[in-house]
């Protein structure tokens, strides 16, 4: 009478398509919500998924219904003290329709909130961004291969035996080895057939029978399958060409960078780091921080430790150049640089920077971006870099950031996909 079915093992993501449809349709709004979130979140939470709110009015499904007004009647439960004919003053603005619906859950009723995963969050965050000028592709020959078929071989593992080819070659061998004998056998048999009964005696006849028997035996003794018949499928590894890229992150940690500025710089680099990690798995990142001297550090130290001192920007560029010469040959690597600073520098150092930049760094780089984080007016470094930009406009980009809210737009500006 009743069927009881266990459906728990059925797929549970029946709504996945509809969910995707929703995200697709409201891409723009979600994008904006994600951008806002990037500005507001703490550095640690930057890459988490989580709550996203978009305005309800944008996603409404309109239907026709009665507005307030006219004459409406309503039956309500729980009368305590009213009698027939009582007059109740109309509540402010409520129009008698159950009063206002202020929300006390912290989410305005004007917002539609939902949760997206980290994956989706990052997708929205880095949608439409890419590293510019990623062109050098090297046959590394070591990192990744793909298996491709390369015909048939005589040797191989039993698992790769090609049965059809093996049997075909056995057949060929058998035909080749027994061909003469078969021909002879056929002749002898024809002779035997031609003999009249009277001739079927004597040593000649016996010799004939003998030879036929010998031939038959020899043919039967030819092996049906021999070891050298076996054929194997051959697979070989082919290296996959891939672009090798390295990103140099250069941050000023000198005394003039106050905590807020450093925080902004770190946020910028975190974004950059997430972006690279996500979209370019094989991209290497080199972290350089500098005050008067530059130092290559690891990720943890770069983002979390503190240091102070004066500022010599050229030290970092020099270190970058050294590292390039040492480890990242420009003929093989796509090299990128990103630098953040408050614009402070020793006065006589900016000239060095320009020289280093134009002669050593930029010729080896695919792209170099500089962000200056300062609410004050620009100093010598900015002006020097402006000259650099004028010389190499396609390789050098610079942007100015004042508050944390500027980071994401500037980041997008620097890395947006360029249409060829």
């Amino acid at each position, binding site marked *: 009478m009743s069927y009881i079915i*266990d459906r728990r093992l059925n797929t549970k993501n029946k709504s996945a398509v*509809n*969910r995707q*449809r929703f995200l697709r349709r409201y891409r723009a709004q979600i994008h904006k919500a994600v951008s806002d979130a990037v500005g507001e979140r703490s550095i640690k939470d930057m890459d988490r998924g989580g709550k996203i709110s978009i305005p309800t009015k944008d996603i409404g499904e309109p*239907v026709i219904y009665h507005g307030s*007004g006219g004459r409406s009647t309503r039956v309500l439960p729980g*009368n305590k003290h009213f009698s027939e004919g009582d007059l109740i003053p109309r509540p402010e603005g409520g129009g008698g329709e*159950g009063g206002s619906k202020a929300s006390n859950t912290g989410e305005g009723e004007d917002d539609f909130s939902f949760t997206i995963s980290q994956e989706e969050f990052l997708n929205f965050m880095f949608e439409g961004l890419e590293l510019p000028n990623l062109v050098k592709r090297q046959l590394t020959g070591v990192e990744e291969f793909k298996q491709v078929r390369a015909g048939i071989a005589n040797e191989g593992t039993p698992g790769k035996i090609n049965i059809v080819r093996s049997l075909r070659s056995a057949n060929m061998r058998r035909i080749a080895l027994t061909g003469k004998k078969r021909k002879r056998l056929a002749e002898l048999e024809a002779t035997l057939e031609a003999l009249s009964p009277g001739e079927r005696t004597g040593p000649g006849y016996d010799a004939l029978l003998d030879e036929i028997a010998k031939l038959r035996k020899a043919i039967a003794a030819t092996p049906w399958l021999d070891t050298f018949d076996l054929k194997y499928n051959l697979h070989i590894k082919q290296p996959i060409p891939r672009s090798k890229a390295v990103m140099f992150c250069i941050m000023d940690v000198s005394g003039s960078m106050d905590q807020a500025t450093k925080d902004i710089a770190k946020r910028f680099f975190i974004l950059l780091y997430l972006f690279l990690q996500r979209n370019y798995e094989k991209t290497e990142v080199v972290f350089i921080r500098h005050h008067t001297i530059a130092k290559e550090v690891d990720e943890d130290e770069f983002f979390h430790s503190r240091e102070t001192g004066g500022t010599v920007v050229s030290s970092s560029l020099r270190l970058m150049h050294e590292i390039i010469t040492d480890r990242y040959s420009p003929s093989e690597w796509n090299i990128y640089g990103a630098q953040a600073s408050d614009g402070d520098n020793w006065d006589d150092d900016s000239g060095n920077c320009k020289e280093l930049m134009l002669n050593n760094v930029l010729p080896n780089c695919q792209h170099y971006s500089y962000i200056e984080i300062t609410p004050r007016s620009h100093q010598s470094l900015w002006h020097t870099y402006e000259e650099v930009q004028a010389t190499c406009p396609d390789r050098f980009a610079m942007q100015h950031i004042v508050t944390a809210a500027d980071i994401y737009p500037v980041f997008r500006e620097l890395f947006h996909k360029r249409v060829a």
Partner: protein
Amino acid sequence: MTQPLFTTSEWNFDLIRDCDRAIGELAREFRLDTYPNQIEVISSEQMMDAYAAVGMPIGYHHWSYGKQFLSTEHSYKRGQMGLAYEIVINSNPCIAYLMEENTMAMQALVIAHACYGHNSFFKGNYLFKTWTDADSIIDYLVFAKNYISKCEERYGIDQVEEIIDSCHALMNYGVDRYKRPYPISAQEEEQRQAEREEYLQRQVNDLWRTIPKSEHAEGDAKTAQRFPSEPQENILYFLEKNSPLLESWQREIIRIVRKIAQYFYPQRQTQVMNEGWACFWHYTLLNELYARGLVTDGFMLEFLQSHTSVIAQLPYDHPYFSGINPYTLGFAMMMDIRRICENPTAEDRDWFPDIAGKDWNETLQFAMRNFKDESFILQFLSPKVMRDLKLFSIIDDDNEDNIEVAAIHNEGGFRKLREMLAGQYNLGNREPNIQVYSVNIRGDRSLTLHHTMHDRKPLADSVHEVLRHLHRLWGFDVHLYSVDNGEIKAEYHCPPKPE
């Protein structure tokens, strides 16, 4: 001494089967006529999927279901809401979902409530019998889903989405209120679909033929009959058949949305009865199980605890008040009918001479079969229930300064109160009455609709948005007039008229 069916709170499939069998036998003793049951145990994630599909086991893809899903998921995962214990689908066999998180006691409650309560209502109530076809609905939904996917492949997701958006906006105006639809099976549907495509297009072409037939036909234009000859309440149907520019696949999509709207139409009109009936029967059946020693005291406590929270009614001035709880009203009325039959008071004999002292089961089944919320309340709401719920009614007239209390639960107010409450469940009052009035066939092909006002109530602002959708489906200018006593009170145009 009979052994209880179960003593643990952990459920398993054997226990569910035994429990279903025991409840099923009882239901037969009470003469409940049901479709066969298909009880499906699902996880909470699947329950959220079922939520998002708004009660359809198979739905076509649309972003609005994704929106529903996201918001359910968001509030559920943050603990802002619990999920319903069950969802039941009006089909044959009747599909009921049980959540795996439920305790055994809850599973028993759900089986009694959904598999025998709702199920027998679906099978017995005249609205469901008339408007829905439980045998073929699953098939039809499969057809609809496949058809729409095919359209998406052929014409692109955006195109299809646009049409569905527009149809959804007009979904409440896609039902026939008086005509009985012809039952359909999926196979038939597919066969007929191709023929219909061709036929429809021909008809539409005929209607929009621009070449004048003859000289004197032109002169007749003014005296020519209005089209449509009578106002049409089923706007989606009208568009499907007559919209000038739609392609045949677009007409088919309108038809699909319309069919689904029609399928849900009875549910929207029988909420109080349906829930009341199901609550009444789970209460009656489980109490009977207890009386026969088939369930334990512990079970009854757990059951009553959730039963009372389901049928709780908050007073009007409570901060969480959100209208009359249909479970409360329905359950109270069903229990009251039984009371009137078994132990009538003088008041009952006065108000319900027909049923006082009659067989209660027969009376209830009669009520279940032949009424919808509006008429059920009008017929069976007794003074006792109004007193118990302390009902009162208010009139909010924008011509008056104050809200007036029109009636309360006293001798003079009962009938008035009952009438007003019934009116509150009348879909005709609740939804603005909008009908297709005329089409300018010879001229600019504009479509004119009339909104016949009810108690001078205006349309909410969303009407502008909906008109845009209507305009998309019609393809030419759309005009909507709010009419009160033959006088135009408001007008809406899409595209908007220049000032």
